[in-house]
């Protein structure tokens, strides 16, 4: 009986942001800013080849060197940021919408519907997501658009399963029974009482999901079912540069580092939000 009463005021206290957390926020904001505004400043030459200048090492003129077509690696990364992040946001938004809808219908609906939807979700969870996405993308014809659609239709099961579990838990809470006893409609019950008390876990998940999606998208492009050359998308860039690792390492290292930094930044953002919700997960 004693523990929660003591723990509560402690857990509720607002704490300031640490330097590390500020750094992660700044990194995410910077990445977003680059993705939104960066391409406006990019020179037109990034899509035209200039064989005379191919595979030049980093210099004052080309900060990250040039690739096999003599294009500036740095500016291609900046332009690729927009493609990559925009696609990732699109994918996460699409599958979250599908997931939330399925979870809500399952949680609110009759038992048979819940069972049916959850079995479909189980199937989705049991299958290796990237392979199925690869299949869809390959079938629809390899392109960035195919990859985005494929990831949206294979990405929702985790969200649906998780949210439905949380919603069922929320529906076990006495305040939901209280609202039923009061006679609220099913619509009001779900939108006013159940969803607001279930969605916050999902919001935490979103940041981390962007990071994972950036990775998978790059992987699909690398395999060849995503963005196609001459797109500046990072995965496709690595794929077309993979033959030059030993002669011009910067052409491979730079886009890979861009994927890693983006994915890590969003992953860390997710962790930070999660730890703020549940301080017990923290390191010290």
């Amino acid at each position, binding site marked *: 009986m004693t523990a929660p009463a003591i723990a509560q005021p402690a857990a509720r206290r607002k704490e300031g942001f640490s330097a590390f957390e500020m750094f992660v926020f700044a990194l995410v904001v910077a990445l977003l800013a680059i993705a939104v505004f960066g391409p406006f400043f990019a020179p037109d030459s990034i899509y035209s080849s200039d064989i005379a200048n191919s595979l030049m090492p980093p210099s004052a003129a080309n900060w990250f060197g040039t690739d096999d077509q003599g294009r500036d690696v740095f500016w291609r990364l900046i332009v690729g940021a927009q493609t990559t992040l925009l696609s990732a946001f699109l994918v996460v938004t699409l599958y979250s919408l599908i997931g939330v809808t399925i979870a809500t219908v399952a949680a609110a609906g009759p038992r048979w519907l819940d069972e049916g939807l959850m*079995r*479909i979700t*189980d*199937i*989705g969870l*049991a*299958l*290796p997501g*990237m*392979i*199925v996405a*690869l*299949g*869809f993308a*390959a*079938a*629809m*014809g*390899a392109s960035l658009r195919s990859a985005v659609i494929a990831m949206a239709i294979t990405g929702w099961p985790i969200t649906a399963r998780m949210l439905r579990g949380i919603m069922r838990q929320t529906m076990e809470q006495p305040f939901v029974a209280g609202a039923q006893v009061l006679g609220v409609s099913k619509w009001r019950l779900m939108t006013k009482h159940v969803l607001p008390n279930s969605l916050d876990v999902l919001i935490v998940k979103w940041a981390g999901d962007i*990071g994972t999606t950036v*990775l998978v998208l*790059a*992987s699909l492009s*690398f*395999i*060849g*079912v995503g963005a196609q050359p001459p797109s500046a998308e990072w*995965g496709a860039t*690595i794929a077309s540069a*993979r033959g030059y*690792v*030993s002669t011009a*390492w910067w052409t*491979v*290292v730079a*886009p*890979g580092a861009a*994927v*890693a*930094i983006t*994915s*890590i930044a969003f*992953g*860390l953002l997710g*962790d930070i939000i999660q730890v703020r919700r549940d301080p*017990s*997960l*923290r*390191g*010290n």
Partner: protein
Amino acid sequence: MLAFRAYSWFLSRRLGLALLTLWGLASLVFLMIKLMPGDEAQMAAGADASAAQIEAVRERLGLDAPVIMQYFSFLGRLLRGDLGTSIVTLQPVLADLEKVLPSTLELVFIAMLLNLAVAIPAGIVAAYRQGGVFDATSRVTAVMLGGMPAFWLALVLQYVLGSVWRVVPISGQQSYGMASPIVTGAPTLDALMALNVGAFFDALHHIILPAAVLAALFATQIFRTLRASLLGVLRSDFIMAVRAKGATARHMLVRHALPNSLNPVLTLSGTQAGAMIGSAVLVETVFARQGIGAYMFNAVAQKDAFAVLGSVMFIGTVVCLVNLIVDILQLLVDPRIRAAQLGSQGQ
């Protein structure tokens, strides 16, 4: 008797779910085939096919029938083990895959061993010394590794360790002249069977870097899961009760905290075993290994859609089987799951 009934209920439920999943997968693959732009018969027959050949294929696949009939005949062909025919090798996809499967399984097996051997001890130490130096550094490492694209990591490590430092072979499954008679198709196993120690270590030498890259991708998940689970268990009441008995930290950790926190790790590693087979696509081609991943990669490159979709079906099936086995193992290991799954038989 109640227990027997409950066990058989659990087993039939799991089997049913596995069958349902396979059916779902088959339906998805059928949907993928229908999503392909262009004439299916034309594609299946290959680019150089004559009009008569195309018509023959159309007839064989029953493509004039209504879609629902096509669906059933597709399911029927799957049941007979027909995953379609590659338009590049002109072989049945299943026959192609059977040749390359052992190599992939070998890679996944070794990667899984590496994964668990690194992630589990690291997770234990990090959780037990929560907030300490090891916890901090291993968490940072996990975040870094987890955020890196595997294929890129493979390329970079291949360059640094293979080309610059030359501590591992750059690519391939074995050195020239080291081939053992093919029995299983997995180089290490074949070398062992041929009692060729040199070939065995050569094959191991070739596999270690690809396996490590694949393991790194998944070890971060195991590490994080185990750490979180163990932290939860360490905070639980019964750990306090064990401490109240006067147990040493080591005893408490090994006998109580660890067994109680392994369950999510077991679940996860089951899912991972399947996902690793899928992720082989990202690693095998970089290291020029002849596994399923490389087969699929080549199929994509050569626009061999039937080989791609056949591989999707095949990998999905293997994953389902692995998941089923892990579920049953879990039931055997954990009395608490037994209780939850089989209904409480207390009192």
